């Protein structure tokens, strides 16, 4: 069964991390991700730009384009993982491991109904490239 692990956290807090703190979190997450990759359990994983960069299309008639995220909440969707697990317990276990590496916030664990892996889009998107030094 495929699960989406949706990462929610307070955006203003996450964007107050220093670069060093952010790097430390990413390094710890990489350890968990490596393990999942080796076990063949990790699908696409991504980190979103802040909600201030988001635009929403409301499906009214005609469809309405509005600025910002869909809803005003304390915690925002900041990224997600797709993982392949036997059952909910295993998905929870992975979320716990990720959670230990990444302070604050919450993971919403949602079984996936339809999964389209898509083409090689990662090569074309600049933001997804590893950061140059």
């Amino acid at each position, binding site marked *: 069964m495929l699960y989406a692990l949706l990462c929610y956290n*307070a*955006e*203003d*807090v*996450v*964007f*107050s*991390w220093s*670069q060093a*703190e952010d790097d*430390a*979190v990413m390094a710890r997450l990489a350890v968990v991700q490596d393990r999942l990759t080796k076990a063949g359990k990790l699908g696409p994983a991504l980190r979103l*730009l*802040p*909600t*201030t*960069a988001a*635009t929403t299309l409301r499906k009214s008639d005609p469809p309405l*384009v*509005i*600025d*910002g995220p869909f809803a*005003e909440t*304390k915690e925002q969707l900041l990224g997600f993982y797709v993982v392949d697990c036997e059952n909910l317990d295993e998905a929870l276990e992975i979320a716990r491991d990720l959670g230990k590496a990444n*302070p*604050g916030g919450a993971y919403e664990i949602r079984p996936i109904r339809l999964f389209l892996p898509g083409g090689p889009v990662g090569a074309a998107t*600049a*933001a997804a*490239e590893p*950061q*140059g*030094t």
Partner: protein
Amino acid sequence: MSDLAWINAALTAARPQAVGALLRYFRDLDTAEEAFQEACLRALKAWPQNGAPRDPAAWLIMVGRNAALDGVRRRARLTALPPEDRLSDLDDAEALAAERADQADYRDDILRLMFICCHPDLPAPQQIALALRIVCGLTVPQIARAFLVSEAALEQRITRAKAKVAAGAASFETPGPAERSERLAAVMAMVYLVFNEGYSAAGAPERAQLCDEAIRLGRLLLRMFQTEPEVMGLLALMLLQHARRAARFAADGSAILLEDQDRRLWDRERIAEGLALIDKAMRHRWPGPYQVQAAIAALHARADRAEATDWAQIDRLYATLERLQPSPVVTLNRAVAVGKTAGPQAALAMIAPLAERLGGYFYFHGLKGALHLELGETAAAREAFGRAIALAGTPAEAAHIRQHLDRLAADHAPAADLSPPPMSARP
């Protein structure tokens, strides 16, 4: 990241909202800051044991308010009771719930707190220092390092700024739409001042932190004013400029021109965010100076090689900026684009009328020298570079001009260009 680091980030993030609300209650900056400090100390004790509250800002406001009131009550035994109105509606038992409900109030609180730092009597360095201290919560030693001044001098600067602010404090009434929009404009200018202070000498890491703080304030403003295209433009502009940070200076500290920068060093994540924001802003069809400058920065960011830069479009955007915000510095920047599209002769003709007003401006002579150099007029180029080097404001600027002069001395004339910096608080 340890729990402590996470709590520190949460306190930093909650700070503008919490200090802003406490300022509304106590109507005194020092009391508000002390109350917030006390609340932070209690958070550092309570949160590791009980976990962070769902709404850290509301917790800090409540605890800070109570702590400050305890202090007031204790002092009241020794001195006369404070006038009732100074305490406003502090014994409201449902305050916490009310705080949570009223996001609009929060927005005005934060805007007021930031607006206080933009007092017209405060010179730019004091505005910046005050904003970094009060809104961002940077410590005095951190700010002193960024400004390269002693802690004592910086402390004095902040004290003086606070005294002026207290004398002409911003109104505590809920602002009307016109007043709110005036405040927002002043605050945006102040945020850009903070950014430029860091950008103009971003070689030093302490300075670069100011750019990060300005960007954080820009994101905060945009979360509060999600549909304001100029706020999107300001944030996009800062992100796109700061994205070039790693490529802007050589190992010896000299400035590297946009054209010569290694574009692989540009920060793709910041560029992606900046481009997304300028795209959003332009959908509003309500242009303003920050958006136009961001659109220019975006054209540079989109060019993967210097030769791929769309100079004709940049020229048009500078023409728009000249209309929105007429200034000889804008015209000087436009001349760089004109030099690329119509040639150095046309650019020289464009900047000739600026000689009187920009005679004391480093970039004027730098650009003039580069244009003469391109035309092979070495004597005129040498003279202009000679003036530029005398007006250089930083060692990086001087080092760059020195390279031109050295090459001229070696009688070797490569194609050169010296673009002025992005529009800033400079003359």
